[in-house]
């Protein structure tokens, strides 16, 4: 791994995210401090309404903190405008969603190519990189398949390769196995573990203890605050 200075990928300093509903003020995030270093494998757990999603949205540059600082790779995201945030999402973040969120009308290949479009990479290069990324997740033979022609596990593989094709700083996975049966879940977790072993920093929201065991750090949120932050020994899948 490169130098120590860049080893911090995410730094949240006293972050608040406040929603106003008429008179009521709701702190979805209530003073969160968090540092995540390169190649950490973090599970974020907590009951619904605990602020998991809000924190993930802020980390994923989809939302901005109401108060406090968020440094992504040393850059202050709080000062970014709409376009710079989009650029940060494109270059630094790879999203994997529970419901896959693939582009329904596009083939697997086009889905994976899409983030590279916004980076201004020429078509031939996009095709090369995207097919390589799909081969890495074992879908080299399904480049032209549409999402509805793929199984749930295959769809999530496409989503993972789309998230990783641009070499992001972090992979953000939101309940990546939530829509999958247990066998397929294990396959997907094995894939994510493998991605982690290749040096990828991963943050994963989950409510399943089984899944959280794959990670080496578990952060528990409650009422917008970090309730516990535990380092653990990874359970390596067989």
């Amino acid at each position: 791994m490169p130098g120590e200075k860049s080893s911090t990928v995410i730094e949240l300093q006293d972050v608040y995210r406040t929603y106003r509903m008429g008179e009521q003020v709701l702190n979805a995030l209530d003073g969160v401090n968090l540092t995540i270093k390169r190649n950490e494998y973090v599970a974020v757990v907590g009951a619904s309404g605990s602020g998991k999603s809000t924190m993930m949205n802020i980390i994923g540059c989809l939302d901005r903190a109401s108060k406090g600082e968020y440094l992504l790779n040393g850059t202050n995201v709080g000062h970014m405008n709409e376009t710079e945030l989009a650029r940060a999402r494109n270059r630094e973040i790879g999203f994997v969603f529970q419901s896959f969120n693939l582009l329904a009308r596009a083939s697997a290949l086009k889905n994976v190519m899409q983030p590279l479009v916004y980076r201004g990479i020429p078509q031939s290069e996009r095709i090369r990189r995207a097919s390589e990324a799909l081969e890495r997740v074992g879908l080299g033979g399904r480049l032209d398949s549409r999402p509805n022609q793929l199984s749930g596990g295959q769809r999530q593989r496409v989503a993972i390769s789309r998230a990783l094709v641009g070499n992001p700083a972090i992979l953000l996975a939101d309940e990546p196995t939530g829509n999958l049966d247990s066998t397929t879940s294990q396959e997907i977790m094995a894939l994510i573990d493998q991605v982690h072993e290749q040096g990828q920093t991963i943050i994963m929201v989950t409510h399943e203890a089984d899944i959280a065991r794959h990670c080496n750090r578990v952060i528990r949120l409650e009422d917008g605050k970090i309730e516990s932050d535990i380092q653990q020994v990874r359970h390596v899948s067989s």
Partner: protein
Amino acid sequence: MNMLWESIRSALDSVRAHGFRSLLTSLGIIIGVTSVIAVVSIVQGLSYTINAQFAGLGGNSLTVRSYTPFKQQLQGNLAKLQDSDMEAIASRIDGISHITPILYTQSGTQGVISYRSQSSFTRVVGIGSSYLEVNSVYPEQGRFFSRDDDIRRRLVCAVGVDIIENLKMSEDAVGEFFRVGNEWCKIVGVMEKRGELLGFSQDDYVLLPYGTAKRIMGGQRDLDIQIQLLVDDMNRQDEVKERIRRVLRQEHGLKSGQPDDFKVQTAEQLTESFNAVINTITAVSAGIVGISLLVGGIGIMNIMLVSVTERTREIGILKALGATRQDILLQFLIEALVLCMIGGLVGVAIGYGLGALVSSLLPGFPEAHVPLWAVLLSFGFCAAVGVIFGIVPAAKAAQLDPIDALRYE
């Protein structure tokens, strides 16, 4: 630019994905462009041929006719041009090579012609012998009448080919007699065929010597004639025109301040006034088409708004993958534009086909002609409609919050 190309590609994908819906969406545009191209192709075809016909009139011919303002007409004071006016022009103005009076028959019975049991109605025109040179028409069979025929008011005539047909005469009609009004006339010549203009035959006429025509018209002393003349030198046309004006004002005893009671027109002016009519027709149809394009545009906006709502989640995904507002705006704008342009393309093709069909079905109608400007204008209009009506849905898509959009079911 890369992003532009990507947007066009994705727009085409999306249009293809919803083929039938895209067709219905751009139907308004298709109908609008189809009608403009069809109307323009027919009207332009007309103007094309008519201009060609007028060119045959000769650029250096002038026509003088009497002109009575409407108010005067109501009072019954009709202005007239008379023999003395023509004589004055002929004797007092140089630079005129040929001059002829033209006398149109004025009322019913004079236009009735008959031969054996056949009878017909036609245009009977009295003319001087210079008519041939001024209008560059010549007899195909027989001869034209001479000065002598005119002076002696002989009952001879030259006819257009339709007369022979209408009266069921034999092929060789020269030398035959037939009735014009109440007189028997001898055919001395048959004029060359001129064909049809706007579906009207141009060969249905009887030409009489001017003197004879006056005789047939009975004793009316103050007939109103037209005067046609050829100017020697094209460049002196305006000068001659101005001199004719002065001479005629003097002849008619008009004081300064009184308006002319006649008009001097060049062949060019005839073409111009015709073109003015054509342009009005084109403009009016363009206006109607503008409305239909407006309606088409609203249709496109409607579907684009539906499409944005329907694809909210897709927009959320694209934003998560790093699409900026501009990227999304461009994508949806281009999609509206592509819909409009496809509509325009189909419209131009159908419109041209329709114009060609109509003009080939109507007998005597000139060939359809689509000028490039009409095609370019149509596309320009389609593009404008696409941008104007695409901007609202595209802006709506671009403004979507990525978190809400991703959560949208």
